[in-house]
């Protein structure tokens, strides 16, 4: 798998990247901090072992990579990559699918709320 070096170089700020399966040149701890909290939330120790976190990060990156490649394959038929492709890929996994639809609808609501808020602010601004 060849990755565009432009994209990869933006990640290799530190030289501490070890060769991983995906041969990414990327910083080791891209998701490390977040992953620690996440693993604690899901049942691990309050301080997970660093090697465990590194392994989980590798697995997650590989998972996302495979997912994205598959989505691209599907999306290429349609022309470009879209959210629908990801949703199609996880259609069998009900919890994930429901969660994603929730997230999307929440995002829509947020957008609406922000728009409404900005309009109000403008009004206030002009009134005062």
């Amino acid at each position, binding site marked *: 798998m060849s990755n565009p070096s432009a994209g990869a170089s933006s990640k290799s700020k530190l030289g501490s990247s070890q060769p991983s399966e995906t041969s990414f040149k990327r910083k080791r701890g891209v998701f490390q901090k977040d992953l620690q909290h996440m693993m604690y939330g899901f049942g691990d120790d309050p301080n997970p072992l660093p090697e465990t976190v590194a392994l989980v990060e590798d697995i997650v990156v590989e998972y996302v990579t495979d997912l994205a490649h598959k989505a691209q394959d599907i999306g290429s038929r349609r022309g470009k990559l879209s959210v629908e492709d990801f949703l199609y890929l996880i259609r069998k996994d009900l919890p994930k699918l429901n969660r994603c639809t929730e997230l999307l609808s929440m*995002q829509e609501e947020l957008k609406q709320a922000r728009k409404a808020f900005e309009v109000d602010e403008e009004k206030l601004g002009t009134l005062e």
Partner: protein
Amino acid sequence: MKQSKDPFEAALEEQEESPPDSPVGEDELNSQTPNEAQNQTDGGQNILVDDDDDDYDDLGPTIKNPSHPSSSSTPKLHSTSVNASVAAAVTNKNKEYDDDEEEENVDVELSKFPSSADPTKMAKMQAILSQFTEDQMSRYESFRRSALQKSNMRRLLVSITGSQKISLPMTIVVCGIAKMFVGELVEKARMVMTERKESGPIRPCHIREAYRRLKLEGKVPKRSVQRLFR
């Protein structure tokens, strides 16, 4: 604009829209101020309920931090301040963590989110949450608030697909999927640990076994065929 000076908050500020499962403003923020008055009569631990998470863990409400009247001015502000203050708490050591946690829990408020939330479910959630120990509450809070950073995810997706056109919903969705995947991994690793009758922090061997089992169950997308003849 920044209400806490935690460096973690700077990273979180990138999560302008709602991080996957943070109890960010959404509609509640608009309905928040009228609810504040009612909610304080509840006393004790109040939980902000929204239609989040009805499926994955069968949980309804989300925990919201004390909303200072000033912070309810923008959803964005509130979400970053909420996330930041919790994140700040979470990044502290565990012992100090409990103190912060208690303060936040005491001030957490309840507001019934009218949308798809089931009232009986919400009542159940409140009953459960009110009986959480500190430890459980902190873990729950970590669970709700943790998220993969959208910026990092976006960078990763761009480098994978080679295309710069990664929309925001796509990033959010992939972050959500990845988080749930981490959950599956960790939970399965814990199961593996109990089978082997081990305790303590999860070790890489447990994760590997969990990953192997997930692969057998078909929950991990398989690489396309090229690996056949290795």
